[in-house]
């Protein structure tokens, strides 16, 4: 193990924290909102990719119920309700496949076939202001829009376009599915609403910077 001193910001080397490197990798896997590669995890932990890969494979086995090399002892154990999958080079935690029906019940509970007013309004802002960050949409609508944007993402009506080079914020835009629903060929086909909005740009800027 060619471990060097602590990486940036971290006071202790992860090996000295409860759970060690293994738990550090788990922490990343649990909250990463997209698949992560060996290299990304290795970079964040400042450890060699090979070492990190070994931990990932080991975690995968442990979640599946093989604890041979894990920290829990050498026996066969019960699989967890989640699994670690490596798809196209990236690792991601999913709910375990054979619980799909109960998970589906949970996911579909309370889902509506219609968009809420809040979702419609948020979609309208994104459509006319794209590419736009959540913070800015929030500022325009005057409420937090995180969960509504998630709904729109799930519905495939909006998509993450890019990352704002300056702020690092994710910028959203509408999708082909959105245009399809509206029966439009392109975003340019959206009816103009410009006349009302001379001072809007500066308003948006202002709101964004006030928090």
């Amino acid at each position, binding site marked *: 193990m060619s471990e060097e001193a602590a990486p940036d910001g971290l006071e202790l080397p992860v090996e000295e924290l409860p759970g060690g490197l293994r738990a550090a990798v788990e922490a990343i896997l649990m909250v990463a909102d997209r698949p992560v590669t060996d290299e990304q995890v290795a970079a964040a932990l400042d450890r060699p990719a090979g070492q990190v890969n070994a931990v990932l494979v080991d975690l995968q086995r442990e979640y599946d119920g093989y604890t041979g090399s894990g920290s829990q002892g050498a026996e066969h154990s019960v699989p967890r309700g989640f699994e670690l999958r490596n798809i196209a080079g990236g690792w991601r935690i999913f709910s375990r496949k054979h619980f799909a029906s109960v998970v589906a019940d949970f996911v579909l509970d309370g889902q509506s076939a219609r968009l809420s007013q809040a979702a419609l309004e948020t979609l309208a802002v994104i459509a006319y202001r794209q590419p736009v960050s959540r913070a800015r949409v929030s500022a325009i609508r005057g409420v937090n829009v995180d969960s509504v944007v998630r709904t729109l993402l799930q519905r495939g009506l909006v998509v993450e376009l890019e990352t704002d080079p300056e702020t690092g914020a994710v910028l959203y835009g509408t999708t082909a599915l959105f245009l399809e629903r*509206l029966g439009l060929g392109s975003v340019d086909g959206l009816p103009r609403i410009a006349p009302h909005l001379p001072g809007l740009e500066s308003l948006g800027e202002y709101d964004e910077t006030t928090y």
Partner: protein
Amino acid sequence: MAAAPAVEKPAEAGARQVFEVQLTNFSGPFDLLLNLISRRELDITEIALAQVTDEFIAHIRRIQAAEGEWKLDEASEFLVVAATLLDLKAARLLPAGAVEDAEDVALLEARDLLFARLLQYRAFKEMARHLAARLEEEDARHPRDVPLEPHFTRLLPELLWRHSPEEFAAIAAKVLAPREEQPAAVGIGHLHAPTVSVGEQALLLQELLQGRGALSFRHLTEDAASRLVLVARFLALLDLFRDGAVSFEQAAPLSELVVRWTAEDERWTAEADEDDDERGAV
């Protein structure tokens, strides 16, 4: 109020600096007051407040100079606090025993209210510190918040969409339209009661008292339709007392307060009172 400290009257650039410093130091009169008190390590439950009065006044004069003009609502808060502080200080300057009872009472009340509001503010400030600490601690944890797994997304009910592009554009126009500029000054649209004028209440008191000579405070306020009117009438009485238009008699602490009309002129004019600009309406 005393003249502004000469030190703080430099060139434009200097004034600007002062302005920025002030803004980062505190927000609002209570914040400033607490700040001054803690800097002198004074206990706000002590009369020591009088000691920070000068500093307080100097501070608000400096802000005023730097900012050019006051926003009315903020100014009034500062001025109420400043006025109360000055009253307290004035009382401390008088030889012991030289103050009349009634004035003492009014002063004590003003002081208590100021203390109470200051204590209240301090409590919330402390809670804010607590919230900040909690938020920071919580920032170290990140919730699992990942996109729905694709095979579940497909199970979502087919979206019902019934908006034409024009309808959709109308929604956008509504949401994107500049919001009514919320006034930077205090909006009064949400104020419940109509404003009550202290001056009017003073005139009303005058009529009551001139007709009957002396009346108890209880009697003078029993027809007050709301707390607002009650407060305005109380302030009016204080104004009248200051101008020597009425006198107070109280046999013993907490006993009935009797108010007597003592002014000689036929019409005491509330409008002539400079203080009304500050608290002419509540």
